[in-house]
């Protein structure tokens, strides 16, 4: 049997030692040449060290967290281990052939791995491996660390009975867990548990709160936006040249919405206890999806006072700031109505959740060409038209069906007869 001594490599000039961060193999593992064995770190360098040979890991001398000088043997690799099973073939006897699967009895024990230090400590204290298996580990990948074993031994000495289950390390100890959310499930094997980031927590809280506060109702209108599409096609090149940003449909939709909001003050409002607050300002929030999967709603203040190009610039600036995390507090506050444009994702229509304390939210769908019946003096004809759905979710405490329906229809009318 031939043993290869795996040494701490000299990672670069001027490096004399390294700290082992983690092992990606354990004793008994079969490795091929170039498999990553362990990760080592110095003040500046992080390195993944591959194996120069193939074989089986026979011994690991240093645990995770230990600092080792360059040239020190850190593990032993048995390079001929593959041949052992061949040697074990039975001699010529007239016995029935042994079942082939019997060759792998070690598989079951692989589930639990203990470092040499842990085994040594346990052995000295007379703790059998079976007992080790009942202990909760706090080490890398939940492994049992030397400290876990020592603590357990101390406890035993002091008359403590059952091991105290130490909870696994929390990923985000900085924030207290969100109330109202069950954290009981640890998930089935293979499930991935992801802690919410702070923004995700706020979104979750707000969405739940909104659904609990406002009885939501949603209605949908199909809009013939052919005129709007032609208008944009006529304008877009010149617009880009003059304004330096591209023209999309959102400024027009915001303008149509603010015009309708002026006529329907109950939609630009909030509900406080038993009072309706009809807002003077019209500040329109635009939902923006962020790179990290979260979303934020920057607000166009006094959107009704802005021209199409003013709206386009405002939306462009806010969206850019949102995606680069540069929004100021005042740019996400004071919204009186929100628009969410899932048409970007080629979705037709949806039932968005109201952004509290507002009372309504407009969902904008994808624009697509459809055959449509057009009435002309010479009779009905079928034409290809650009169609888009818009949907309004509203708070039925303040907006009843007649008002909500008329409001969406009004936006649709403005868009359908778009002339600029």
């Amino acid at each position, binding site marked *: 049997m031939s043993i290869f001594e795996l040494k701490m490599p000299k*990672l670069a*000039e001027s490096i004399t030692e390294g700290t082992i961060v983690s092992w990606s193999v354990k004793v008994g593992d079969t490795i091929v040449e170039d498999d990553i064995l362990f990760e080592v770190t110095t*003040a500046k360098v*992080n*390195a993944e060290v591959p194996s120069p040979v193939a074989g089986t890991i026979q011994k690991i001398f240093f645990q995770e*967290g230990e600092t080792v000088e360059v040239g020190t043997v850190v593990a032993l690799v048995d390079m001929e281990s593959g041949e052992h099973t061949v040697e074990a073939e039975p001699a010529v006897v007239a016995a029935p052939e042994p079942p082939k699967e019997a060759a792998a009895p070690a598989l079951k024990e692989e589930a639990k791995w203990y470092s040499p230090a842990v085994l040594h400590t346990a052995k000295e204290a007379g703790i059998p491996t079976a007992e080790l298996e009942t202990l909760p580990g706090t080490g890398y990948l939940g492994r049992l660390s030397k400290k876990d074993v020592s603590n357990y031994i101390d406890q035993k000495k002091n008359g403590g009975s059952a091991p105290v289950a130490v909870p696994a390390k929390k990923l985000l100890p900085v924030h207290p867990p969100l109330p109202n959310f069950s954290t009981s499930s640890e998930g089935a094997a293979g499930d991935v548990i*992801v802690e919410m980031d702070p923004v995700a927590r706020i979104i979750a809280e707000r969405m739940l709160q909104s659904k609990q506060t406002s009885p939501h109702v949603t209605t949908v209108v199909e809009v013939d936006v052919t005129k709007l599409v032609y208008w944009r096609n006529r304008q877009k090149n010149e617009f880009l040249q003059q304004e330096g940003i591209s023209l999309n449909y959102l400024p027009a939709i915001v303008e149509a919405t603010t015009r309708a909001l002026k006529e329907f003050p109950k939609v630009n409002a909030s509900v406080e206890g038993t009072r309706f607050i009809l807002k003077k300002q019209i500040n329109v929030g635009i939902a923006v999806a962020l790179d990290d999967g979260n979303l934020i709603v920057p607000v166009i203040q006094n959107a009704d006072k802005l021209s199409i190009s003013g709206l386009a610039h405002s939306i462009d600036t806010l969206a850019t700031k949102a995606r*680069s*995390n540069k929004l100021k507090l005042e740019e996400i506050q004071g919204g009186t109505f929100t628009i969410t444009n899932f048409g970007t994702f080629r979705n037709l229509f949806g039932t968005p959740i109201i952004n509290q304390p507002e009372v309504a939210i407009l969902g904008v769908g994808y624009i697509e060409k459809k055959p449509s019946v057009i009435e002309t003096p010479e009779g009905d004809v079928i034409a290809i038209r650009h169609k888009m759905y818009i949907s309004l979710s509203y708070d039925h405490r303040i907006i009843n069906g007649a008002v909500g329906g008329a409001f969406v229809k009004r936006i649709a009318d403005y868009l359908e007869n778009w002339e600029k």
Partner: protein
Amino acid sequence: MICIDNRHTDAYFNLAAEEYLLEHFSSDVFMLWQNDSSVIIGKNQNIQAEVNLDFAREHHIKVARRHTGGGAVYHDAGNLNLTFIETDDRPDFSKYTRSILAMLSAIGIQAEADERNSIYIDGLKISGCAQFIRKNKILFHATLLFSSDLSNLNASLKSLHDVTETKHYVKSVKSSVTNISDHLPEPLQLSDFKKRIVSDFLGNARNRMYTFSREDTLAINKLKKEKYATNNWNYQA
């Protein structure tokens, strides 16, 4: 060697891009890149011990963990990052530092490096570096403080937590810093400094420019989503 003038400014994307290039590109790579305001900690650092997380949150500063060693650094639009990826069995990282010193000298900055390959002007730090080695591939990257917001830098890297843990963590070495722009003999924009670096690089006939293909971007975004933008990676303890 290929040169990538990477215009993405999302720290998570850019860190994923580095790993992607190291893993999938056989040619040597030189990449220039910048991040929006963010704190980037070393692979084996404790996030709470290194970053003022409250300050970062309040000031919309992203916090990200990179795959190289070293300590915590602050990035913003006034900071330039340089990445070198090469195949080398016995790397000597000081050669990259020497080429950065040459770039600085070309714009009239006399700077010097220490044994950790950090770069200083009059004893004030302007550049730190860190490395990653996977088999025989190495990645060296360095920051260059050109016109960064130094008050944000100092505040975001001042952790209020004293972390006493048994686990091995790499502790940052604190240094007083300065901006390159404060030491220039004549005014120069960071964008012009970048242009100069790129044109000098292309002066070598064996070098050429490269831009990320659609497939590159998709793969990098996937890695970002699965690793660099996750709390599991960034907040690991």
